[in-house]
């Protein structure tokens, strides 16, 4: 409960920092050079219509009220409510990032466990070596290489976007397959380097766990090796992995900006990127707000999960 209360000033602080960052922008909304056929006073009128001409404090208080009531304002560039734009894009980002998150943790934990529990040293070396390299490969580079190999050279998967041009005419199942085919490459680019990092971490944690006394006791009772690793070993690794989960979400959100831009995936990262390029103040604020909430929520979720699986953590934080 204390953690939940502590979130409010945090969220307020984030919103204030982003608002102030935007305020020191040298340009004003609609401040671009007017093209031909534009009335001289048009920019001023637009600012008045979008209420961007009021004093700083008044706009700040208005923002805060809007964010508390769920009204995120109107996008300057799209002329549509920011909330609607974000909820469309957020769904696409959750699809991509959620799948990547699940994939990186499953793959990473499996590979790390296999490396730590391997009978032969060569398997451990192979997994650890591959992971060290993969962990250091920039995800956008992986994206570029995968697209050129799988999409351009072999033509197996689409290059970018989320749906094919004729997707609207397809039935429900072919349409789902179409989206999944578009998902494979961005998801792999996002998940593989992170999975490699998790694999290295899990391997070290698992080795430390397997060296402990209760593991040997379980072995001495005659439990088969695989059972020991899967029941006792994984239980020991669970809490550190949950802590990683909280750390992984901000990285995933940042990484998805680059990947979404590269793959033209219609998600939050690309929306924010375009909003910044077009100086779309309400949209930038809205995106930052939602992304920060996701970061705060994920670290809270990691804390609560850690307390749920480990009684020592539960007792330490009343």
């Amino acid at each position, binding site marked *: 409960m204390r953690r939940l209360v502590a979130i409010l000033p945090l969220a307020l602080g984030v919103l204030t920092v982003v608002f102030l960052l935007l305020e020191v922008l040298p340009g004003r909304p609609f401040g671009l050079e007017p093209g031909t056929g534009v009335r001289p006073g048009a920019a001023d009128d637009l600012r008045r219509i979008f209420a961007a001409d009021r004093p700083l404090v008044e706009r700040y208080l208005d923002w805060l009220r809007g964010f508390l009531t769920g009204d995120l304002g109107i996008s300057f560039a799209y002329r549509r409510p920011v909330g609607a734009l974000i909820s469309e894009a957020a769904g696409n980002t959750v699809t991509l990032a959620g799948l990547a998150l699940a994939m990186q943790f499953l793959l990473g934990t499996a590979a790390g466990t296999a490396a730590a529990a391997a009978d032969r040293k060569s398997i451990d070396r192979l997994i650890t070596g591959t992971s060290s390299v993969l962990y*250091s490969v*920039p995800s956008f580079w992986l994206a*570029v*290489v995968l697209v050129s190999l799988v999409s351009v050279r072999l033509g197996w998967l689409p290059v970018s976007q989320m749906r094919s041009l004729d997707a609207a005419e397809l039935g429900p199942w072919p349409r789902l397959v179409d989206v999944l085919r578009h998902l494979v490459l961005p998801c792999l680019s996002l998940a593989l380097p992170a999975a490699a990092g*998790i694999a290295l971490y899990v391997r*070290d944690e698992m080795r430390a766990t397997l060296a402990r006394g209760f593991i040997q006791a379980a072995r001495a009772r005659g439990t088969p090796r695989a059972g020991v690793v899967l029941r006792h070993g994984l239980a020991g690794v669970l809490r550190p992995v949950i802590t990683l989960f909280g750390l*992984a979400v901000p990285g995933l959100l940042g990484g998805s900006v680059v990947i979404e831009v590269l793959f033209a995936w219609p998600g939050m990262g690309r929306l924010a990127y375009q909003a910044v390029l077009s100086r779309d103040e309400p949209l930038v604020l809205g995106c930052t707000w939602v992304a920060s909430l996701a*970061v705060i929520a994920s670290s809270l979720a990691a804390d609560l999960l850690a307390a749920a699986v480990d009684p020592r953590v539960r007792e330490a934080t009343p």
Partner: protein
Amino acid sequence: MRGPRLRIAAGPAALVLILLLAAAAPWLAPRPPDLQEDVAGARYLAPFTRAVALQIDADHVRIGTSPRPTAGGWEYTRAGRRERVDATDLPEPPSPRFYLLGTDGLGWDLASRLLYGARHSVGIAALGALLALLLGVGVGSAAGLAGGWADALLMRGVDVLRSVPRLLVYLLCATLFRPSTVLLVLVLGATTWTELARLVRIEMLALRRSDLASAPRASGASPARILGRHLLPQIAPLLVVSAALRFADTVLLESALSLLGLGSPPPAVSLGGLIASGREALAEAWWIVAWPGALISLLVVALRSTASRLVGASDPPSLA
């Protein structure tokens, strides 16, 4: 016996090699990174291409591959066609060109561009990591040593900054100011120090009650002297390891930003910029994207393995 010892040295050795190559770029690069001798003749040459440069007249050079001397002249391949030139038309004999890593679509020599790009990116990442180190140590030790409301205020500020997604801060700053190298260093440094500040604060909280702090305090040393002479040396290993990991992260971030077009503007050459420039031509010239990507990965592997060597083999790699 040989295996483990070799592996111990591989990370730091690769790191030192890359840093030396980057620092010595102006002396090692075979040509200036933006020398265009003959765009049509030199574009998209594969790695390990041997070619000749033929000085046609004062300001025209032809680059040709597979040259062959003929009776009274030279024959060579240029832009897919066999061409020939009479020896009498050449003021000088042909000079050899060797493109170790190939060329890009503008006829630029990639070995030279890779060296200069590494120099630029490593420099920016090192400065960014240094700035992060200074900020992290400054804020972290201030909070840890001051305690009370100052500590609470500083750490809540750190929490807020940690919750704003980094890439959005970069995006904001890139529109706020014109993209420039100085801005890039400032932004990279200013957004990556929070994790270190938390680490340093925890160490300082533990140290400030110890004899290490109370003994010099009793003898009248100033807080700055206590921090600099007595406490910071205690956490020096932690700082070195964090700096190396920060450095690795900053290399990755810098290249991602350059890829999005928010890094140093041209004519600066950066590793991410090189990847961006080869993206469109990947089908006909894989090497433009391959070299900088491989170099970034190698540098990051080397930094991380050096860091984990410093910590000791048992510590997990940081995912921060």
